């Protein structure tokens, strides 16, 4: 069961797939999914961005929506903004992949 959940987050890191978890060293597992948070944020903004982008393209310029937003296609703009932020997080994960802290730190504390 636990192995499945591990795979959920792995694909985002694939470009840097010498993933520390693969080395088999007994590192603190908390550290392992630490930076996965960046991928989770990217995932959230990616999905939200795509949905809003589609909403913006489909109905963003309907008079009813334009009346609400005061004339901008808010779904489209926000969708694009979210995709850009999501892409920046992906870039961050890709450029600065997870580094495992030196083993003594993680191991010493759990006596």
């Amino acid at each position, binding site marked *: 069961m*636990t192995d499945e*959940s*591990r795979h*959920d*987050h792995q694909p985002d890191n694939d470009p840097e797939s010498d993933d520390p978890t693969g080395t088999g060293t007994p590192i*603190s*597992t*908390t*550290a*392992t*999914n*630490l930076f*996965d*948070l960046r991928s*989770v*944020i990217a*995932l*959230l*903004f990616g*999905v*939200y961005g795509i*949905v*809003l982008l589609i*909403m*913006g393209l489909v*109905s*963003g310029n309907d008079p*009813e*929506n334009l009346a*609400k*937003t*005061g*004339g*901008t296609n*808010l*779904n489209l*703009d*926000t969708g694009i903004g*979210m995709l850009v*932020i999501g892409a920046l997080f992906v870039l961050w994960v890709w450029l600065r992949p997870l580094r495992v*802290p030196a083993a003594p*730190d*993680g191991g010493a*504390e*759990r006596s």
Partner: protein
Amino acid sequence: MTAQEILRLDPNIVDYLLVAFYFVLVLGIGYAARRSVSSSLDFLLSGRSMPAWITGLAFISANLGAIELIGMVANGAQFGIPTVHYYWLGAIPAMVFLGIVMMPFYYGSQARSVPEFLLKRFNRTTQRVQAVIFAVASILIAGVNLFSLGLVLEALLGWPLYVAIPVAAVVVLGYISLGGLSAAIYTEVLQFFVILALLIPLTVAGLNRVGGWDGLTRAVTEGPSGGADLNAWPGTPLTEIENPFLSVLGIVFGLGFVLSFGYWTTNFAEVQRALSAKSMSAARRTPIIGAFPKALVVLVIVTPGMIAGIMIPQISALKAEGGEAVDGITYNNALSLLMKEVLPNGILGVAIAGLLAAFMAGMAANISSFNTVFTYDIWQDWVRPDRGDRYYLQVGRLVTIIGCVLAIGTAFIASGSQNLMDYIQSLFSFFNAPLFAIFILGLFWKRMTGPSAWIGLLSGTAAAVAVDVLVRVGVLEISNQAGSFLGAIAAFVVGVGVAGAVSMVTAPRAEAELTGLVWSLTPKDARTHSTTGDDAGWYRSPAVLGGAVLVLTVVLYIVVG
């Protein structure tokens, strides 16, 4: 129309899907975090492994709960620009102080909680007194969060309160008990971004509707405040002090010193985020990194509030006529009404997710810190000492469930109270101000003794409760806001005075035991942190970052005025 019809949003299927996706993700995090939980330290303090940017954002997100969000948009609608004091003078200096001055003692002492720190500096009685006070306060405040969340679900989605409250409690319970503090911290960071995704489009569309910033200032100047809403100083409507000079003094010393330092330096829900940082340097940077978004986020909180004051007829009527409510609508409804007014379906779903996320952040912060304090300070150090780590991990999980159940109870208690904001503020004056008095005195005065700490703590709380009662029964004829202000000051003064007096007649602890706990007995290199590896670089220096955020705050004050 009834208030409920006015407030009802009209989410469509896409909105619901966006909300659902958020919660699936949040529960997924809890599940994924679970596999990394292997000891009670992992569960309760995230194994001290978090990088500073995560703990920093979690630090501010733990504070950016729903009551905060809704209450501050309401303040923006009611008072306008003076609301910024809560975010700038009322937060930034205290957050920098926490990072630079206090964090070396908190983090360096290896304490797992604020009460445990009190044990190290004072004695066991102080730890227990504070642990019990804190546990009670956490559950009371968690109940307020849960009740408010239920109210929003009721108003926005039409769920009845007795369904909405337990459902919300179960979701919060789900992700904390699955993953402990890791899950709570992760989702807090996620929530921070979703809340921004709510506030920024809301501000943009709102400004579009009122004709940009110029249109907004013109409308506010022509409005009932006559433009006073546009100036941060002297903020007389906010403080309810008529003399402008005294009002400024009240903001600087009351809000800027006693309340804000008391809140930010001792509130465990926030401090705990810094304790889970991976190094001393990261722990010191945590509140300072959090200070940057804290300083900026108010711009997208006050602006929508002011826009709501112009665009929403009931809120405008409230501003013009005064009073508590128009058509059952209060200032507290400003945020959701503006969402309804300017956000099209799609982004509306993101906004609802953000709002629900904010309520859950507040409650999760209360529950997870209640959990830590109960498990370590009440159960492990007092009731059932000397069991294995696995045992305390089990206790931690069980306490989370009990905490959520208790919060459902206190939520229904809170539903009977008339004004939640007053309730919360009174609680802070009871619990945070005396604690701050004890902390500051103990940190800088090595002569301060153990018994003086808990006696000072209880007397300070008693003083604040006394002020509260005097205000309520009408002996002191001041507003509730000014009452909690006065209560906090009384608690601080009485706490320091009593602790000082008791210290003179009781025996101090040996100086050797207080190294690392008292300023003058801690060598300078024990107060500094490593500057190598992940902590290297001038841009990671807490002092540089702290200076930068203080400069930013001054610039913001100059620009916004």
